[in-house]
């Protein structure tokens, strides 16, 4: 496996506030990497920063930011536009407003393929209809001729998903792509993505609140807290042996995978994600952490906890059982 997307020390600031503070993650070819964490912890900003699509006022810095072996930190908008939509595609968290109200679904879907592949109109329409069918939209021909306002939220989200797949991208960044969808459609979409992944080696960075989805499809999980990736591990290892107190809290909130709906409070972790002032040192979770001690205010070491399992925490392995004992 080779790294398709490698991010190290990603920092994003909006004016004085730091939204992402040195996040690191790697997505390999053919792998599904899930990014989880409470609302406001910087998941969307991280994904937008990777695509260089930050809103005005957002500043991005990174120690490493490479796609398919190419350093993409210095690329200008024109160079990025050659990658976007073609080799790296994105599905946004806001399905209701992400389509242009002035154009039909067909027009918006086909222009991607025409732009990057120089496809003819007919070819592009065929491809769009095929993908709409594959994301579970009946009567694709009808939908292609419709405008966004004529579609429900779930349909728009599926159109966005289909549109992102038009050019068979190598990397797909999907920010909560199935939130507006019911469970059966969600399962269908996830199967579709898994199928494409198997056929084409698609790498997926999936942002989700749904740990049930994570357990089912993720190869690797990264847990984000206050702009940092505090723990990253192969899925089985993370569920079996969570290290960071925050991860443990997150998992404790979800005893039964698939039962959690978006908008539910994440229950058992007391407190809220704090606003992190610039120049903040130490662990951002320490105010909410039951195991916090003096070292948590210093520089936090990155420690290994098994194959491919890393955690950003001062506590030694097995701290929880010792305290409980």
């Amino acid at each position, binding site marked *: 496996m080779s790294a398709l997307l490698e991010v190290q020390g990603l920092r994003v600031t909006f004016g004085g506030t730091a939204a992402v503070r040195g996040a690191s993650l790697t997505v390999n070819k053919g792998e599904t990497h899930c990014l989880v964490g409470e609302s406001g912890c910087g998941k969307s900003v991280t994904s937008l920063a990777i*695509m260089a*699509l930050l*809103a*005005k006022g957002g500043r991005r810095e990174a120690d490493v930011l490479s796609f398919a072996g190419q350093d993409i930190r210095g690329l200008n*908008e*024109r160079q*990025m*536009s*050659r*990658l*976007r*939509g*073609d080799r790296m*595609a*994105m599905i*946004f968290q*806001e399905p209701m*407003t*992400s*389509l*242009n*109200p*002035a*154009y*039909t679904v067909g027009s918006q879907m086909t*222009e*991607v393929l025409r*732009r*990057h592949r120089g496809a003819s109109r007919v070819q592009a329409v065929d491809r769009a209809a095929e993908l709409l069918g594959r994301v579970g939209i009946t009567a694709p021909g009808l939908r292609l001729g419709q*405008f966004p*306002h*004529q579609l429900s939220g779930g349909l728009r989200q599926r159109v*966005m998903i289909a*549109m992102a797949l038009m050019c068979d991208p190598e990397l797909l960044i999907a920010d909560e792509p199935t939130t507006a969808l019911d469970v059966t459609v969600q399962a269908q979409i996830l199967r579709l993505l898994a199928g494409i992944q198997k056929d084409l080696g698609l790498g997926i960075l999936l942002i989700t609140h749904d740990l049930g989805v994570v357990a089912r499809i993720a190869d690797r999980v990264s847990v984000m807290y206050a702009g940092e990736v505090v723990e990253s591990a192969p899925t089985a290892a993370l569920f079996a042996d969570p290290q960071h107190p925050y991860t443990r809290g997150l998992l404790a909130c979800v005893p039964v995978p698939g039962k959690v709906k978006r908008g539910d409070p994440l229950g058992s972790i007391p407190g809220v994600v704090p606003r992190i002032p610039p120049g903040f040192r130490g662990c951002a979770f320490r105010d909410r952490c039951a195991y916090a001690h003096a070292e948590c205010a210093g520089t936090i070491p990155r420690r290994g906890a098994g194959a491919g399992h890393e955690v950003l925490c001062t506590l030694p392995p097995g701290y929880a059982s010792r305290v409980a004992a």
Partner: protein
Amino acid sequence: MLRFLLRRLAVALLVALTVLTLSFLLTRLSGDLAISIAGPNATQEDVDIIRRAYGLNRPLTQQYLDWLVRAVQGDFGDSFFFKDRVAKLIASRLPITMTLGLVGLAIALVVSLPLGIIAAVRENSWVDRSVMMVALIGQAMPSFWLGLILMVVLGLNLGWLPISGTGGWEYYVMPGIVLAFSAIPSLMRLTRSGMIEALSSDYIRTARAKGLSRLSILVKHGFRNAAIPVVSIAAVQLGFMLGGSIVIESVFAMHGVGYLAWESIGKNDFPVVQAVVLVLALLYIALTLLADMLNAVLDPRLRSA
């Protein structure tokens, strides 16, 4: 779509009828028409003759219906001064005014749309600030004054363009610029604010995520949505230009309907004045309707409303 347009058409017809009625009432209620037609030196006998000849002795409602039926057919009676049908006079002058208005609008759009877009793309930069400054100056400048400056510079000093009169395209340039100048600030501002809003929208982010070209992002996805309010204001501005032709045509001695109105006011030729006002008002209504139709084409949400 059809329901939207039918509703707009009904509203337009209603407004047109109101304008017709008002224009009738204004002439009848602002004193005795027969006396003003007859002039200051007329005897009572003359006035009576005129009153009968023009049917002014009939009941007001009958006069109104009679006048309305004729006005709808484009019959505005005879001019007192020009000794000709009013409708014919207006028909011969209208093309000049319309051409002038369209030239003015074209110049205004060619200047304000690109500038508005550039100002939006470079929001808060020096480019943006200078563009907005120009808009402010443009708004503060009286059009007759700008007209005179252009005449002196382009006409007298440089000799590039004819100073006044009616003729080929070159006669339309200077008055066109003057008309455009008054429309540019609002068109530019609206383009800018519409573009700023569009460019910060999620669908523009989507367009960028799809890797579309800069031109496609700005124009196809951005301006297409920003253009919707611009179309409405452009129609209103064209209406203003047609209405304002009375000043511009007098300054540049162009023989359009504005000039006709100017002459007729001086000659107390009320059928002509009334007809010009009426025609300009109806044109204005037609323009608004046209803008609504264009908007329905541009905004699919309106179409299905």
